[in-house]
């Protein structure tokens, strides 16, 4: 795959979910991303090739590069050897489906479940280092206007450098492995990466929570003040255990506090 074709697919994959629909999910976005490669292979017969990719497709958007790369390679094989085309298309559809679900499972856990929260904790940690406090929102002095965007930017840089790298490399990797077993899944030790990121995020957030909790107790001037962060933590654990939503917990707090205020 030449460099410019890779750039085109990479850029078009940013629009993967632009036409997300209930019936076939990311199909139109995926066909749109493949279009430059299909046009190169099939020239004026590109419509039939695009039509092949308008069926159901859904994966984690950052992992779609692996599938796009693999599909490009398989389309190339089919285009260069028409007598084998039918068999390649059949295999391609199965590969696409299998890769999409396997990569979605890993991608959802890593990007949505871990890295997104990690980037947030990192922003809060950077603010803490700069002296900007989130509760109550204060500090940072005259430089707060500089530190606050810098903290946000820090989280964004970590998140995007990793996700863009995987999006870019995924196309190349997918093209090379052409949909073989484990294509994309064996790109990185995902489990180890998820575990390490979760461990780092957990430690960082615990340190920050302790810092803010300690500060709160010190400001309240009573040890009883510790009940607030501890109670909140217990509440968060209970919400998780009950598989409940934080939003409902927040609304419940308002209702209970309101009811108590009326009674007392």
């Amino acid at each position, binding site marked *: 795959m030449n460099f410019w074709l890779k750039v085109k697919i990479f850029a078009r994959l940013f629009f993967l979910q632009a036409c997300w629909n209930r019936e076939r999910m990311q199909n139109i976005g995926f066909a*749109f991303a493949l279009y430059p490669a299909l046009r190169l292979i099939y020239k004026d017969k590109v419509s039939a090739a695009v039509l092949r990719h*308008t069926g159901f497709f859904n994966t984690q958007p950052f992992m779609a590069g692996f599938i796009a790369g693999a599909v490009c390679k398989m389309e190339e094989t089919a285009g260069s050897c028409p007598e084998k085309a039918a068999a390649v298309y059949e295999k391609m559809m199965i590969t696409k489906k299998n890769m999409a679900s396997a990569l979605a499972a890993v991608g959802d856990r890593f990007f949505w479940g871990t890295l997104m929260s990690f980037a947030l904790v990192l922003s809060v940690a950077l603010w803490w280092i700069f002296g900007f406090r989130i509760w109550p929102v204060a500090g940072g002095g005259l430089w707060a206007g500089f530190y606050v965007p810098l903290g946000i930017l820090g989280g964004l840089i970590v998140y995007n450098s990793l996700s863009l790298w995987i999006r870019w490399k995924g196309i190349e990797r997918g093209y090379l492995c052409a949909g073989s077993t484990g294509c994309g899944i064996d790109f990185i030790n995902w489990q180890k990466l998820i575990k390490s990121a979760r461990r780092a995020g957990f430690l960082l957030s615990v340190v920050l929570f302790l810092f803010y909790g300690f500060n709160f107790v010190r400001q309240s001037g009573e040890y009883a003040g510790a009940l607030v962060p501890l109670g909140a*933590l217990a509440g*968060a654990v209970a919400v998780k255990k009950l598989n409940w939503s934080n939003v409902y917990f927040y609304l419940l707090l308002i209702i209970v506090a309101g009811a108590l205020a009326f009674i007392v």
Partner: protein
Amino acid sequence: MIFETALICLAGAFLGLETVCFGQFLLSRPLSAGAIIGWLCGDAMSGVAIGLWTEFILAGVAPVGGHVPPNGTICAATATILARIYGLEISFAFLLGLMTGIFWPEIEVRMRNARSKWNAVLTDELSRGECRPGKWIFAGLAQQFTAGFVFLFSASVVLGLAGNVAWQVMPEQIKMAIDFGYSAVPWFGFGALIITFL
């Protein structure tokens, strides 16, 4: 006020595109969106606080599969506009913003269902040899942007005007409860964030 709201909502709707339709670089995450909208409203710090509490309260909520979670960008943008443009108490603005963000999936799901009908037209076009997939991508972006803007703008104006009246006539006990809920968000939100790593 209406013109100012409209301009800020345009920026909010543009940011909202990034949540699902384009890129997903996290520029539209509540923290960044809150800071940007807050800066446009003339008070970036309120936007940062609202964005951060929105992140905390929505910690662990992810768009896995076809699930449409509450929209954090809409939450943060609406709450910041209500607090800074319409002068609502930040605790009340946050509550209303959150309600707006929770309501958004109703619209998102309808749009996704509507887009399903495009498949038949696309298939028909391709069968006839017409191949312009970019047209559909543009249509998807335009639909999302328009819906985002109309929703954000109408929610901001209606809640901004009605919210001010409601706050005036609201019993003190309820105001206290709303303030209490808002002050508790950083704590249990931080706790929820810790748990997402377990």
